């Protein structure tokens, strides 16, 4: 076991793949000479050279699309976006091309490509730079979407994502790059499509992913103080979504709160909530409680941003409101 920050874990996953598989290469803005906007690829250019670490123009449509082409031809491109907010300019390529090509070609084509992007609000970047589009992309058939909340998952999911034969979005919580966590020295993978029960409990299930795990863990601690035993689930994979794990937990606790640090409205937690109705309604002692950030654009001011951003107190409030705990 070694303790490394999440950034390092991602980096290790990338580095390993670059070392072991010559068909793996990277593209993105300022990933080379600059070392990456969040320093994930720092040192890569020197180590792997410009053929494999490709600095791109600010042309997200073109380089994401070129990644698709390279993947179709048998390579394993890894594309970095400086922010998930900038995926919007390439949404057509992601949704209409990467995700649809296999189906439209009757299965002749596969697109083994990884898209990496920092996601989420919390550092005062304002309305255009603080979004969480992983929740939209998780709704696109043909796409897989994962989001690690810790170093272990970051490395394990990255390994799986690079090996996957489909387009996989790895959404990296920007607020967690510097967060430490233990990582085994021996090789392991984290399977895409499997949620993880990070803490077992019997009274209420708290579900989140990415940065939201901070909140639910904090809430679970506070609940424990007052004798409420929370089970905590980290989705890890937004698509495929591991409804089986979620349903199993709810069948045990009969209470559930879903939590997203992205906007409360819409997104992946609306999906989890709706699907729970279909698959576990009879097990529930109350409504599926939903917690998330306010339905407004992200403001710059620190206080306002904190006000919009949901927190552990909101989770506790939801537990109380929904289930009187």
């Amino acid at each position, binding site marked *: 076991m070694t303790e490394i920050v999440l950034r390092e874990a991602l980096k290790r996953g990338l580095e390993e793949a670059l070392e072991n598989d010559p068909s793996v*290469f990277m593209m993105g803005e300022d990933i080379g000479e600059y070392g990456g906007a969040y320093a994930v690829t720092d040192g890569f250019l020197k180590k792997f050279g410009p*053929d494999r670490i*490709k600095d*791109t*123009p600010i*042309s997200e*449509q*073109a*380089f*994401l*699309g*070129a*990644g*698709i*082409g*390279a*993947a*179709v*031809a*048998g*390579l394993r*491109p890894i594309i970095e976006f400086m922010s998930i907010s900038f995926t919007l300019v390439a949404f*057509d*390529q992601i949704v*209409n*091309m990467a995700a649809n*090509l*296999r*189906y*439209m*070609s*009757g*299965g*002749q*084509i*596969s*697109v*083994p490509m990884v898209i990496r992007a920092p996601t989420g609000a919390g550092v005062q970047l304002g309305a255009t730079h603080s979004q969480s589009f992983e929740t939209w992309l998780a709704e696109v*058939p*043909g796409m*897989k979407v994962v989001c690690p909340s810790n170093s272990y998952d970051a490395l394990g999911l990255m390994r799986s994502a690079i090996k996957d*034969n*489909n387009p996989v979005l790895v959404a990296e919580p920007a607020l967690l790059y510097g967060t430490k966590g233990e990582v085994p020295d021996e090789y392991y993978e984290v399977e895409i499509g499997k949620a993880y029960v990070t803490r077992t409990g019997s009274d209420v299930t708290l579900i989140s992913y990415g940065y939201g795990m901070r909140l639910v863990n904090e809430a679970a601690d506070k609940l424990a103080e007052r004798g409420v035993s929370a089970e905590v689930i980290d989705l890890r994979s937004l698509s495929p979504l591991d409804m089986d794990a979620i349903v199993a937990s709810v069948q045990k606790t009969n209470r559930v709160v879903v939590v997203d640090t992205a906007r409360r409205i819409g997104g992946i937690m609306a999906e989890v909530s709706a699907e729970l109705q279909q698959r576990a309604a009879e097990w529930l002692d109350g409504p599926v409680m939903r917690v998330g950030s306010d339905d407004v654009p992200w403001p710059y001011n620190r206080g306002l941003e904190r006000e919009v951003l949901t927190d552990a107190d909101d989770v506790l409030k939801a537990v109380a409101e929904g289930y009187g705990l």
Partner: protein
Amino acid sequence: MVNPTKSSSKSKSKPAKSSKNGKSGAVGPDESDVAASTDHRELFRQMFLIRQFELACGENYSKGLIRGFLHLYIGQEATGVGAISALRKDDYIVSNYRDHGHALARGVDINRSMAELFGKATGTSKGKGGSMHLFDVVKGFMGGHGIVAGQLPLAAGLALAQQYQKTDGLTMCFFGDGSTNQGVYHETLNLAAVWKLPVLFFLENNMYGMGSSIERVRAGGIDFYPGLATYEIPAVEVDGMDVLAVKEATEIAVERIRAGGGPQFIEAKTFRFGGHSVADGQKYRGQEEVKEWETRDSVVAFPLKLIEMGLVTKDQINDVKAEVYEAVAKSVEFAEQSPNPDPKEIHNDVFA
């Protein structure tokens, strides 16, 4: 760098003149060359095949056997056939929604192509793609694509793989005049140029993007190739109604790319004789313009020229025609008789 040839025609209603530049203009074939004669016959066969295929598509659309959007290649046959004849088997081709001609010229099976348009299980995409999405990966035919200009980065990426894998293969990418107004077109040209990708950008300038004459929607007039200088991509213009001129211009560009010259650009001036799709009443243009272009119909003119030059006989042409009629009729039969895909198929091919 190839010097762009200056277009002599500035009017929108006049067919493009044969390029004056000998290099990319029509050059008489060596009359003593038997192989060339076979080649010529093959070029004609492909053009005629495409024409008849497209006519059959139109008919079967009227009958309701083909549905969705249907964009015919009628009028542009010389362009696709000439261009693709200059490629090797290991090259890739990427097309847009007007893709039947490119697929057939590439040798994609006619039966499976027609079956795809009929939405049948035997279709190239198992009936899931339809007219706009023919694919044959074994043949290097990497798809028709429905979003205007969306196919350009795909082509750049295929070329990137060819470069990365140190092959001397290349990728040919077709697109229309209208698609040059999509931002992704410019992003891709620049990327290809910066990385010197082995990609041949092939513009089929048929003067219209759906109902929009280029002159109404594009600053810079009807010639696109001069603008490529901005990206330092060598570019030429060629008469897209002249299959030999297209073939030759493409051969030159292909050679340059294989020699490591990076991306090249060809603008073929051509014309679709029908509407944008079969649903288009063409209110936006006069019939004289169409008629004038039709006088240069390569499917008619090319065999006449071959006969005149004594390169093929009338009988040989008729033999080709008979063969094509039969092949197209059979493809329709094949498509009609093929089964629809199993409803369970909807869940297949989502993930690899």
